[in-house]
């Protein structure tokens, strides 16, 4: 390399020099012209040297050897590997060598941690003020498992979920990812832990393990990426907050201009609306179809329909009566859930950095059929039971200046009519739980967010809960890439 470089410099310097000597008294204009010529030659040689250097590196990569940097011959020789018929290139131009697949040039070789997975940690915390005691939170007309994530959470200061996330490629065919939730009460839960194919091809991706189900819009997103601090009422009442499960998933993206994605999942069905049992087969199955695209440079959208079927046996459910006494029930049967979701995003010229707008909504219908043992510690009724409930939310988020966003969410549930042997608290008597939420958030960078949220929550008949939440959500470590 150095050989070529010095030859190039000599040529570059001697040529104009010879020209200069040939003239007796160069004028100022001629001198300027010569200087320009030297500069142009220097430029040209620099570029060609860089090009040769790139070819050398490409050739080395293809040959799998690291030749000494001064080896000019290696640069001039086309790579023997690669297979492309570079020999057919016209002789006038250097036939570009075929490089091996791109390899990152900045890997620190030989270190024990070179292959460590990407690690990120989400830190969050809340200061909350609610006008009703969170312990008496209730969504009228819905019975939920004792561990369901419903309500505004604890009052006062509390640590949110700290989420540890690790991900890496396993080998050329698989990647793995785990999200471990470290709860404020010092317990640990596995939110996600799955392996996923990277090389099935033809638009197919398969996943196995525990993962957030791909139904609806919000469910598959990690809670820290949500625009509000809590899940919509419909998610709380019909999916127990956010639904994850152990199972397998197959997703196929169609080879079309329009984004068309079909997903099918089967799994254990251990979480509400399903429940764990000792059966061999799958307790839960779901299908999802999503389509999406752009309208011009400024608008993009996605819409979908999902269906979930889950089995429950001896599923423990609780409710509160008007005197805040716990009513325990046990449900066995099937749940069929349909979700319609849509999101539309706008950013001027597609540049969301300054201002952007997002409108999203989901509608859910849950049909439960089976047997119910109602108020097992009290009236203890038993009989066939069916209930079809529905609910929706609609929310809008507007970033009006860089880093600042405001948002509003409105939602409503219809517990629906109940068919049962006797009167129960599941029958809401026409009451529609509802909630309206406002928020403003500030993100100093894409890694930190401070949010103030106010909700007027009328989920429980006869009670209005004014909920204030001040939250922080920050992520440190690897740069996560978020979905649409």
């Amino acid at each position, binding site marked *: 390399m150095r050989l070529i470089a010095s030859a190039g410099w000599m040529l570059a310097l001697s040529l104009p020099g010879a020209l200069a000597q040939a003239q007796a008294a160069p004028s100022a204009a001629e001198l300027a012209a010569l200087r320009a010529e030297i*500069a*142009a030659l220097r*430029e040209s040689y620099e*570029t060609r040297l*860089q*090009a040769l250097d*790139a070819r050398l590196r*490409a050739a080395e990569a293809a040959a799998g050897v690291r030749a000494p940097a001064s080896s000019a011959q290696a640069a001039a020789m086309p790579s023997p590997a*690669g*297979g*492309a*018929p*570079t020999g*057919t*290139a016209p002789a006038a*131009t250097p*036939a*570009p060598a*075929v*490089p091996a*697949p*791109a*390899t*990152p040039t*900045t890997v620190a070789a030989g270190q024990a941690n070179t292959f460590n997975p990407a690690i990120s940690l989400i830190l969050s915390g809340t200061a909350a003020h609610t006008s009703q005691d969170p312990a008496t939170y209730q969504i009228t007309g819905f019975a939920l498992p004792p561990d369901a994530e419903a309500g505004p959470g604890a009052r006062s200061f509390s640590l949110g979920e700290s989420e540890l996330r690790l991900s890496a490629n396993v080998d050329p065919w698989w990647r793995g990812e785990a999200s471990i939730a470290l709860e404020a009460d010092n317990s640990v839960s596995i939110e996600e832990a799955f392996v996923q194919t*990277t*090389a099935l091809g*033809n*638009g*197919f*991706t398969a996943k196995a393990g525990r993962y957030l189900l791909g139904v609806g819009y919000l469910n598959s997103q990690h809670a820290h990426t949500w625009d509000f601090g809590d899940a919509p009422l419909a998610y709380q009442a019909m999916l127990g907050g956010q639904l994850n499960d152990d199972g397998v998933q197959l997703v196929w*993206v*169609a*080879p079309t*201009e329009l*984004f*068309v*994605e079909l997903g099918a999942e089967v799994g254990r069905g251990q979480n509400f609306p399903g429940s764990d049992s000792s059966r061999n087969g799958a307790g839960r199955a779901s299908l999802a179809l*999503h*389509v*999406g695209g*752009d309208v*011009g*440079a*400024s608008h*993009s*959208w996605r819409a979908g329909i999902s269906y979930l079927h889950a089995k429950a046996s001896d599923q423990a459910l609780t409710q509160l009566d008007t005197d805040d006494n716990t009513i325990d029930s046990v449900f066995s049967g099937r749940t069929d859930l349909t979700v319609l979701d849509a999101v539309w995003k706008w950013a001027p*010229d*597609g*540049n969301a*950095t*300054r201002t952007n707008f997002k409108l999203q909504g989901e509608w859910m219908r849950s049909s439960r059929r089976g047997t119910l043992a109602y108020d097992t510690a009290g009236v203890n009724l038993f009989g066939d039971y069916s209930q079809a409930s529905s609910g929706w939310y609609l929310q809008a988020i507007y970033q009006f200046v*860089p880093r600042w966003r405001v948002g509003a969410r409105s939602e409503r549930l219809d517990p629906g009519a109940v068919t049962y042997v006797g009167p129960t608290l599941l029958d809401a008597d026409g009451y529609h739980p509802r909630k309206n939420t406002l928020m403003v958030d500030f993100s100093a*960078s*894409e*890694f930190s967010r401070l949010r103030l949220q106010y909700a007027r929550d009328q989920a429980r008949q006869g009670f209005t809960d004014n909920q204030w939440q001040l939250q922080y959500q920050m992520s440190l470590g690897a740069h996560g*890439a*978020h*979905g*649409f």
Partner: protein
Amino acid sequence: MKTHKFFAACVTMSFVVLATPAHAALRVLACEPEWGALAQELAGPLVDVSVATTALQDPHQIQARPSLIARARNADLLVCTGAELEVGWLPVLLQQSGIAKIQAGQPAHFAAADFVHKLEVPTQVDRSLGDVHAAGNPHIQTDPRNIALVAHALTARLQQIDGANAAAYAQRATDFQQRWQQALTRWHAKAAPLRGTAVASQHKAFSYLYDWLGVKEVAVLEPKPGVEPSVSHLQQVLASLKVQPARMVLYAAYQDGRPSEWLQKNAGVPAVKLPFTVGGDDASKDLFALFDDTVDRMLAAMGSVK
């Protein structure tokens, strides 16, 4: 007005794409407009080029939109910058596309930054330093010499993936490199007055351009990469410019020009909007026009043109 024009162009483009009959052309998805333009130069009718972002979008901050997943799904070759520029969105496209051949490390995943010498490679990375890239400054396309290097590597990659047309790619590469060398000589002569000029930048987006032109960066408006300049920080920059004056302040087409305009108003330093990539302004229709226009705009700010 400009938005409408752009909108109309996009609609027209999508009709053109829809109307194009299916043929065996290599489908190239370029992450940024400069690589789309380069693929077009090097492969012409042999490829169908689709560009994931426009010159008016911040390439750091792109959403993994459904339309992009669909385009990644249909791509035969991905041409991106690399060097972590697309770290916030490309991994989602790769994961969700379900296409093995465009995954990182495969021949159909071309990262341009692998083939150039990168500037500003940090010795220390920490998020308190702002939006730093461990692999170095990723805005390599602002130096036309880098374009020549990437063109060599991309031609080789096209030949590897589409061996049947290897000779045609070689021929087109020869033609392009010849025209590019001529253009380099022309730009070099034309930009001679810029050599040694002191400038300020809004974002550290032009380090390669300065390296090429021999321009000296004496101030950056962003306190840290990717952090919006506050008024108090701009005051500090203003004070530093009194000691070490700059001839102009440069910002990219996708950026909010207000900090630069503030400086123009308060320090009398002309604010220059550079196209940054192909399509950044009306003149920058291709790679040649991009550098013609970039040099013209800087010279105009120097007051040495017309």
